[in-house]
């Protein structure tokens, strides 16, 4: 990996943003290839699983609280 491509050592005009013309990014930014997840088919499916699990956990915790209070 080329460290100079990280942009960390690339000089950037300090505070030079105001009113400056459209400032090009200091490094070329390649578009990342959207990899599919190794399981689950689509990323949106995995996101839904995570949020669905949270909803189920909250419901279970609430039932747990009520059952033993």
């Amino acid at each position, binding site marked *: 990996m080329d460290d100079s491509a990280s942009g960390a050592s690339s000089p950037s005009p300090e505070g030079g943003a105001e009113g400056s013309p459209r400032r090009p990014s200091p490094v070329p930014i390649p578009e990342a290839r959207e990899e599919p997840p190794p399981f689950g088919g689509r990323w949106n499916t995995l996101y839904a699983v995570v*949020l669905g699990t949270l909803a189920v956990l909250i419901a279970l915790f609430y039932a747990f609280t009520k059952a033993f209070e």
Partner: protein
Amino acid sequence: MSHLDWAVLAAALVGMVAYGVWRGGRSRDIRGFLLAGNEMRWGTVAISIMATQASAITFLSTPGQAYADGMRFVQFYLGLPVAMVVLAVTAVPLYHRLKVFTAYEFLENRFDLKTRALTAFLFLTQRGLAAGLTIFAPALILSVILGWNLRVTIVVIGSLVVIYTTSGGARAVGRTQVLQVGIILAGMGAAFVVLVASLPSGVSLLDAMHVAGKAGRLNAIDLSFDLSNRYTLWSGLIGGTFLALSYFGTDQSQVQRYLAGRSVAASRLGLLFNGVAKVPMQFGILFLGALVFAFYQFEAPPVFFNPVQTAKVRASAEGGRFAALEQRYHELTAVRQQRALDLVRVMDNGDPQARRDAERAFVQAGSEADATRRRAIALIREADPGADPSDTNYVFLSFVVRYLPAGLVGLVLAVVFAASMSASSAELNALASATVVDVYRRLLDPGASERRYLLVSRLATIFWGIFAIAFAQQASRLGSLVEAVNILGSLFYGTILGIFLVGFYLRSISGTAVFVSALIAEAAVVACYLLTPISFLWYNVVGCAFVVVLAATCQRFLRPRAPSALPAGG
């Protein structure tokens, strides 16, 4: 501790350090040292993320938190899964695309150098102090339980971490965390089994849960909306989401873990796994604490769980009064034990009125015992005004040492060490990254060789190890450690998150506007902490909202700025 315990603990410590040095290998450049050469599989990333967040404080203080205050602390984590999804969608692909070492590099690309420097400074301050607490927790426990000198213990623990983190960098951190998580799961699982087996005959796990529930210790969800109430569903879902977004999205100790992933998919899956597993894991640890509470309803607990403080007051002029209070406490807990057994008995016979009466009698006996305990704690403070009135951190380990069989005590102590070392090694690695990449390489010596940067990375790791050890020496009076760490984080995270959110989504706002707004926001958060009763989780919302709103307002008074060339997150 028996010889077997010592052998188990020593084997675990030597094994962890040796394994870290061996698997860390020899990095030839700073990408290898700081990002493990971007070669981590998603499973390793996932374990590394979880192990970095779960320090020894998690396993010592959290059960004590449930013992003293119930399980409502679990709500603190409810925003985490939401944050994991948001970061998987936005930050992960962006950071990978930019091929950054640290999250703060993004800010210079998006804004300017001063914004990057300010944010890196906030991170270094907050995380440097937190690393001290991470080392302090197990040292404190060891010193109290084994009578070791606290200062020496801190130095020993800190040094063990520094050895393999300096040697192998991020690769050593990630690989060792897998071993450490194995030790943690084994130790906590064994403690749970022994705890359940130690309940009195005739008292089942379900009975113990009923007893804990009647005493208000199984209060996992609180639906009330009260800004001064520390843990509610709403503070967890809203404040907790902001805190988790900031911690996982902008804190280098976490960003570095998923940047070490071999692809966007590996990093995303690591975060999403954490989103699914973290809340049940915390629930399990709190449940363990609630069961320790239930266990002590059938056994005589000490009036105060810190044996050092108890010994001090016994030796003071207040020793006689304290002994009388201890005696009274033991009488009252004996009554409470009987009431608890009565409660268990009537729960099985199905008479509702008898059950209500037994519940009332049990709660009343508990209140009387608690009142005596509070008087004993007040006396401890009277005898030693500098004494910490909280014994939350000692509850779980006190149980372990007293009731676990030989060998398992050593295993649980190894859990404490493993958790502390996994979290603090990641912190030192991240602090070294920000120091080298955001300060040394960017500001002090931009054209140096890879070899020099690698050397400075190792020196920075040692420096932050020494800094953490030095702060740990001063950390003995912070009350519940798990809360101290989270309050400290919340003082900074909202502001940092606000800066990143503006960077990601408000592309017309300039560096100067966000820089000024961040300074004002940080002052506002500190004012909230010092001057208002607002609970700390809301600081994350306050800091973030101040930065976003003020930056948008400031920008209206500055000359308009063309949108950044950087792509938005996602």
